[in-house]
């Protein structure tokens, strides 16, 4: 093999090595997103597990709509089937509405059972909020990496697509009408 052949082979070797490194970086960044997504799932489930407790609490004090609970249960089973985080956030949003209604009831606010439940919910909500921020941070890093040159071309070549960021929950944008 002549000098030219060695040079061409070396260049090819460097290019392949570069592509392997780049591919591995994209994969590790995508795995980080998956990991942080599963973190959100853990906290969402912890929160949803408290739904029956909240409903039990509310029952004794307020005339809550049974439809609300049915809706939450339905949404939760949809979430459990697909593990779609958007669905999960929808359940959470409904759950928060129910919580907001409960919090406006003075009798309920004085209940020890409700206070303890509220504490647990606040703790999980903080963790959920933090998990969302971790997820958004990982998604931002991944999206920035695959949308800048030359990664833009390579990522497309390897089939890596941009991931969606978490937006502010819908219920926080709305004005909640409390009617007990």
């Amino acid at each position, binding site marked *: 093999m002549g000098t030219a052949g060695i040079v061409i082979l070396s260049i090819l070797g460097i290019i392949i090595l570069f592509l392997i490194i780049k591919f591995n970086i994209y994969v*590790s960044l995508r795995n980080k997103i998956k990991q942080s997504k599963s*973190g959100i799932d853990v*906290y969402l489930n912890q929160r949803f597990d408290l739904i029956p407790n909240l409903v039990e609490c509310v029952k004794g004090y307020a005339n809550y709509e049974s439809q609300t609970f049915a809706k939450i249960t339905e949404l939760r089973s949809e979430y459990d089937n697909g593990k779609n985080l958007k669905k999960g956030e929808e359940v959470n949003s409904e759950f928060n509405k129910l919580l907001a209604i409960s919090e406006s009831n003075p009798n309920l606010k004085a209940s020890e059972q409700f206070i303890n439940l509220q504490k647990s919910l606040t703790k999980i909500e903080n963790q959920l*909020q*933090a998990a969302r*921020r*971790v997820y958004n*941070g*990982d998604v931002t890093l991944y999206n920035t990496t695959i949308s800048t040159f030359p990664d833009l071309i390579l990522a497309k070549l390897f089939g890596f697509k941009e991931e969606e960021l978490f937006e502010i929950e819908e219920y926080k944008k709305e004005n909640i009408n409390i009617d007990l």
Partner: protein
Amino acid sequence: MENEFEESFEKIYNDVYSKCSENLKAEKSSNNKILLIVLLILIVINVCIYPVFKSGIVSLFAFVISMIILITIHVIRNSQYKKMYKTEVITSLVKGYNDTYDYNAYGGILRSEYNMAKFDSMYYDEYFSEDQINGTLDSGENFKMSEVVTKKINRYRESDGSYRETEEVIFRGIFGKVDLKKEIPIKIHVSSNSAFRKFSKDRVEMDSAEFEKYYDCVTDDKVKLMQVFTSDLIEKYIAMIKNNKHSIELKVEDNLMFFRYGCQSVFEPPAFKDGLDKDFIKKYYKLIYYPLEIIKSTVEKMNEL
């Protein structure tokens, strides 16, 4: 945060000035008087020596001796002034920030305590520590911080076979330790931004571009770290770098927190300025205020975990 700093500083500066200005001025003018008198005496002696001995070598010798005497007196008087500056001005500054904190110009943090933090990956030969501030945070944790200098001695062999030594400063700045009241369930390491850590497995991508520009956060529990690093705390870390031109490095493990930040020699009186120069005192106050605000908030947030 900057507004709070300015308000707090204005009040403290006025207090420090009213307490210390007279004593400092008196000490400085007494130093100058003594030096002037000694200088005049030495000039007279030197002028008289030449006609008596009529020898250039004797005159040169007398001049050198005079210079040594003058420098020695200056150094002695200056160290007294420095002592006074530290005891009065810096103590008032520290007490102004928090009345319960103490300042000890000659106290320092032990080398073994500095090593516990494992901040320096590089080995160092010499360790020096002074200017200690200690106290109890509002949330009840004891802390201490002091100036630390670590140096590495490099030995070279010259071509003629002799050895030459050079000093390399590894770290110069403030180092501190906080004894946390409870064991913290996560490990945290905040350090200045480094390209090497960008893709590290344990690195957390924070949701502030400005924070990301200056710092790297590594932890074994990202969610808990995010609970600690809320937007108001992130703002404090950014304010630190904007105002002190240095980032703070922080480590949390079990029930200990270590922190350090680089800066030039601290709490020394200025060489060519008035000791109570407002900008100069402000520079020292920034070195106390911003890091302690970060430490206080970080500890409070960690206690909530």
